[in-house]
């Protein structure tokens, strides 16, 4: 199995197995354009993110052997649970957001789906403020505008809210 070399934004190099590297649409496009012997530069990807991604693929292979299912081809419900349990533990909200962005950038469908689910779980029942923090988003409504929206959509703000 051929190995593909990538270099992340902070100068670290990683070797990926070819079939894993091809899971990333972005890397695949680069490979098609350039020779496989060259190192692929990924200036938008951090080394810790790359470590996480490799960890993910390793975990997938482990779970595939355990459950006997081709994870890449089909989305197995219980597979998702097993994966989420593992990954959820070590990712802080910030890291999750960054990783999500990176995986989206790299175009790794399978991992993206899982991270979206994780993100969705963390968003449920959170207040607006904590959602903002989660998504790292600026508050660009004036208090008046915010009040107006809350008025218009009052029916959406009924029910329990969890303070974070």
């Amino acid at each position, binding site marked *: 199995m051929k190995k593909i070399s990538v270099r992340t934004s902070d100068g670290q190099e990683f070797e990926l197995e070819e079939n894993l590297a091809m899971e990333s649409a972005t890397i695949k496009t680069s490979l098609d354009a350039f020779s496989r012997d060259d190192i692929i530069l990924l200036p938008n990807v951090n080394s810790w993110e790359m470590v996480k991604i490799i960890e993910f693929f390793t975990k997938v292979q482990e779970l595939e052997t355990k459950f006997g299912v081709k994870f890449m081809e089909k989305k197995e419900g219980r597979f998702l649970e097993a994966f989420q349990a593992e990954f959820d533990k070590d990712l802080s909200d*910030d890291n999750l957001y*960054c990783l*999500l962005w990176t995986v989206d950038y790299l175009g790794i469908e399978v991992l993206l789906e899982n991270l979206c*689910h994780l993100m969705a779980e963390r*968003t449920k029942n959170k207040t607006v403020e904590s959602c903002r923090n989660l998504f790292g988003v600026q508050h660009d409504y004036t208090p008046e505008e915010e009040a107006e929206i809350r008025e218009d959509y009052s*029916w*959406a703000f*009924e*029910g329990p809210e969890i303070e974070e």
Partner: protein
Amino acid sequence: MDRRIRKHANKARMARRMAWEAIHKDRISQLPDDTLSHILSLLPTRDAVRTTILPKRWNNLWISIPNLDFDQREVSSDKFGEFVDGVLSLHASSNIQKFRLCSRNSYNNGDEYLSRNSRWICDAMRHNIVELDLHIFDNHGSSRLGDLQLPVSLFTCKTLVALKVSSNCMNLAPPPSASACFPSLKSLHYRLGWPDSASMFEMLASKCPVLEDLTIDQMKTFRILGSLMAADKYRFSINAPKLENLVVSGQVGSSNYYFSNNAKAMVKAEIHLIHGDSRENIYHVERAPPLLEGVSGVKYLSLLTPMFSARSLPSFDNLKHLKVGLFRCSYWGYVIELLKRSPNLEDIVLDIWTWTWGKQEYVKGYRAFNPPEVVPICVSSHLRTISIINFMGYDDEFEVVKYLLQYSEVLRRLTISTRESYLFKTRRMTAEKLHKKALKFQKCSKTCEIEIIINSETDRHKNCSCHL
């Protein structure tokens, strides 16, 4: 905690935060709309709507999310109506992928509740829904099953692929005028549990021409009829841990059914794969289908199936009552194998389908009965009644009767039923002679009775019924 360690931890956290912000500023820090939309679609609609408060850019993002999920348990009951109305009226996209409605009525305005839900479903169907999940209950008021009218558009919807329904007030009968019902429905999940729901469901299930995935909750008896699911190219996986009775009947490809989960609660099974004089009947199959393994825990079993090789037969540890159809010839070995594998058997009915014999078999007549080396446990300890239908009077049949009488220690009754014409044709025997011969056999059980029933000529198919 040591102050120094704490200080160190704080510093590390600060450093990480700064690094994160640095990266954040550098890259295009917003996730693309597609991804955001996808994340929002995984949330219950209430949470998705709230995100509208986040940056201006997101303001109307939620309106184009492809999934709507309304759950009354998450919104306070009196505001739920407004909420659903509000979202439905604002939803810009004409296509909703997934629509889920979970509502309960606990106020005393049953009519209003029903009409509201009906209107919402009607509204929803306008959006080319692909997956529909309805969980609608009226726990107050006098609504009964059949009161909530579903729009015709639901039954004729061309885009609907998956339907999940659970309700105590819905009318699921497809309208008679609907020509093409559920043209694209591949998955149906239905929850029974109310009077009349079973028949309503059967009507519904029979109208799904391309159905692939069928899930039924709370079903006690399930009937698989040959006409309902034709073609051998499909495989059916049955996952039914609470099912009590199973009837499989018709020219179905028996090897195509298997149980993906232990059918622990099953008590009674009827597997009829052989019908009448049909030329399509196959009387000998090498391997017993997985279906047989799946029903091997039942107490009552009726088998009208080809003979299976001994190796492939499961053991029937709980079997008390067995009725088995015997075709063509050379079936005594098969009968012995079944007896061996049913250690607790109490009643057995051997139904000989003599009209499946070819001309040669009639002429030759004799099929050997080889008594087993060891008497099967059920014969010596449990067998109480034995019944042989369409007894012809051949030597091997008499040998079987002799063997069973000799070794059945608790046998109460042996019944032989046949027709005068059969006996006469084969052995020029009369009923009287038969009786005399049978009575001469040595009986192991002191309380055993031998009963001989002679049927009239017109009762040809009388013994085909499955009373156990």
